[in-house]
């Protein structure tokens, strides 16, 4: 088997894909909380994706992505047996996994996949684990079965209420009833911001996984800088996990959108075969 070859591809929901790739060096060292950088080809960008599984014996590592921009759409076209040009990792600091007691793990959209890796590790460390998985709509909800398997209790929520709770307001009721010692949240920034605000009122330490724009992913460029507790931190080397009660989420939201126009243009140009990268959609 070739390094970076795709050994399994699962469509978790429309446009939400899970890859398992052969990368023995990365598999040996991967831990929950870390990420890889994926490069699709010579002219490709460097895309950070959170690790959501690894099999040290098979030498594989998994990551999931939502087909939203040019690179993720291209990745989505790859099949089992295809090879990705380069995958660098594991990068970033691993999660703190230990016995906290009762742990609440909240995952949103595609980040449910890496959240479940943490939930499993938390359970193995002897915690009582409650997971919350959320999505925009019922059709986009992923890994419900896995969430039940990975945790003592699994709760579903959707933005429109098409499945499970509507929105995250139910969390306040949950936290009034049950006492949690620790919370992790992985998902869209707005979701992590909401979760952090709710848990803050209850004094539950909350770790969020930030996904700012990155290029090198190893501390060189500083584009991933975030403000945490009033200090400048680099998402890639100081994180990607930070204290959710100290993160300046509003700044992060603005910074994540900095290149939105270019990302959209690039995606459209690729779709219509005008991006000149030589990898145009067939």
């Amino acid at each position, binding site marked *: 088997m070739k390094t970076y070859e795709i050994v399994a591809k699962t469509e978790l929901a429309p446009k939400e894909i899970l890859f398992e790739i052969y990368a023995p060096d*990365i598999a040996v*060292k991967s831990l929950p909380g870390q990420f890889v950088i994926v490069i699709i080809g010579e002219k*490709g*960008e460097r895309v950070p994706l959170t690790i959501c599984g690894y099999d040290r014996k098979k030498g594989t590592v998994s990551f999931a992505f939502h087909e939203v921009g040019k690179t993720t759409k291209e990745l989505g076209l790859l099949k089992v047996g295809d090879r990705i040009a380069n995958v660098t990792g594991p990068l970033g600091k691993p999660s703190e996994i230990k016995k906290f007691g009762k742990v609440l793990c909240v995952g949103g959209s595609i980040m449910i996949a890496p959240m479940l890796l943490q939930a499993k590790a938390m359970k193995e460390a002897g915690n009582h684990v409650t997971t919350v998985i959320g999505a925009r709509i019922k059709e986009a909800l992923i890994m419900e079965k896995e969430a039940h398997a990975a945790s003592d209790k699994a709760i579903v929520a959707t933005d429109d209420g098409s499945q499970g709770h509507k929105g995250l307001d139910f969390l306040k009721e949950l936290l009034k009833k049950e006492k949690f010692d620790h919370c992790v949240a992985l998902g869209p920034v707005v979701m992590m911001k909401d979760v952090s605000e709710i848990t803050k009122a209850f004094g539950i330490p909350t770790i969020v996984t930030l996904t700012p724009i990155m290029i090198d992913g190893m501390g060189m460029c*500083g584009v991933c*800088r*975030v403000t945490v507790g009033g200090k400048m931190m680099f998402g890639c080397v100081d994180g990607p996990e930070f204290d959710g009660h100290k993160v300046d989420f509003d700044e992060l939201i*603005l910074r994540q959108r900095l290149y939105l126009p270019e990302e959209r243009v*690039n995606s459209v140009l690729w779709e219509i075969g005008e*991006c000149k990268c030589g990898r145009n959609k067939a």
Partner: protein
Amino acid sequence: MRKQDPKVRAKNFSEVALGYDEAEALEEASRCLQCVKPQCIVGCPVEVPIPTFIKCIREKRFAEGVVALKGKNALPAVCGRVCPQEEQCQEKCILGKIGQPVSIGRLERYLADWEREHGFQLPERAKPTGKKVAIVGAGPAGLTAAADLIKLGHEVTMFEALHIAGGVLVYGIPEFRLPKVIVQNEVNYIQKLGVDLRLGNLVGRIHTIPELMKEGGYDAVFIGSGAGLPQFLNIPGENLGGLYSANEFLIRVNLMKAYKFPEYDTPIRLGKHVVVIGGGNVAMDCARCSMRLGANVCLLYRRSRDELPARKEEIENAEEEGLVCKFLAAPLRFHGDEKGWVKSMDCIAMELCEPDAKGRRSVKPIPGSEFSMEVDTVIIAIGQTPNPIIQMTTEGLQVNPKHGTINVDENGKTSLEGVYAGGDVATGAATVISAMGAGKRAAKAMHEYLMNKK
């Protein structure tokens, strides 16, 4: 040497300096006095036999000239372009005392380019020693150490964290000063010598240095991981959009080729009014790239022109291309628009103080001299420090707590047996050639260590 016209080159990323043709090279080579005690060699950090290769050019024995040059310098096409010869070999040239020194760098470039056009000849390798060496970082220090160690018969693996080899030569120095195809050629040469290059392999995260030595079976390790961590100003507004570290800006433009977006996937957004903060070579590179991307560029430097740390040649090139300099001014804070992009900055005028013990003049702000500037883009080029990942993951490796640099002796030996380091990771941000010199000295010391080890 012929250069592209400033008006033309300020709009393209092609190489500025065009190099000698054969007639020009022969004429320049004929000026060399062939001194009995050549001082130029003394001025060269890697001791290139300068008079020998110049004599070869003179007599049109180019292939022999290449052998002489490459015996000491594995990256002549790079050095001929980016070395500060005016303060090294050429500063020592006797002709410089009475007029113009021999243009050693340009002749070096001529020979290196001649070789690229006529095909590489691989040097002889010593008998295999059975020793394995790991090189961490494929920048100038690592490439030099790798080339020397493999020629001495050791088995060499080079680990590079990025997806392209070359280090600062590919992510930092722009195409118009050092075409990337030239760096790639030098890397190919080193691979042809037999070096096993592993890209996208961040030592410290995949393998730590102790693991390389214990489990990987490496007898010695050279760390040349550079100074990749950007410094910021620590003033309000630094996280606004349109504010780049020099590293981010240069990585986008050079490594990821954002100037060719959307052919290349990584974009860069630059407004019309770019301010570059800083005064070193990196600041000049940022300024010159920005002009090529169509911006009006102002360099903001807190000292005066006389203190600019950049090479004179680079400052002149930049000014010819349209750079405007604002001296004796420092930024105080940045202001953004409703979308979070920078729109203006407040600055304060500075005045020079008396020189300190080292002769460097510090500055102090002039009270009440605040002023503001409208800007769309700011590039912060005030220096880089070593990336801490290796230092954090290598137990027992002694580090300078203030600068984050790895402590080494004059041969690059660290506090750990068999582990050597050199280049920016040991000295803090410096030049390509000083990193190459360090790689060379370390390779020599490592060879002695390997051959004497039981």
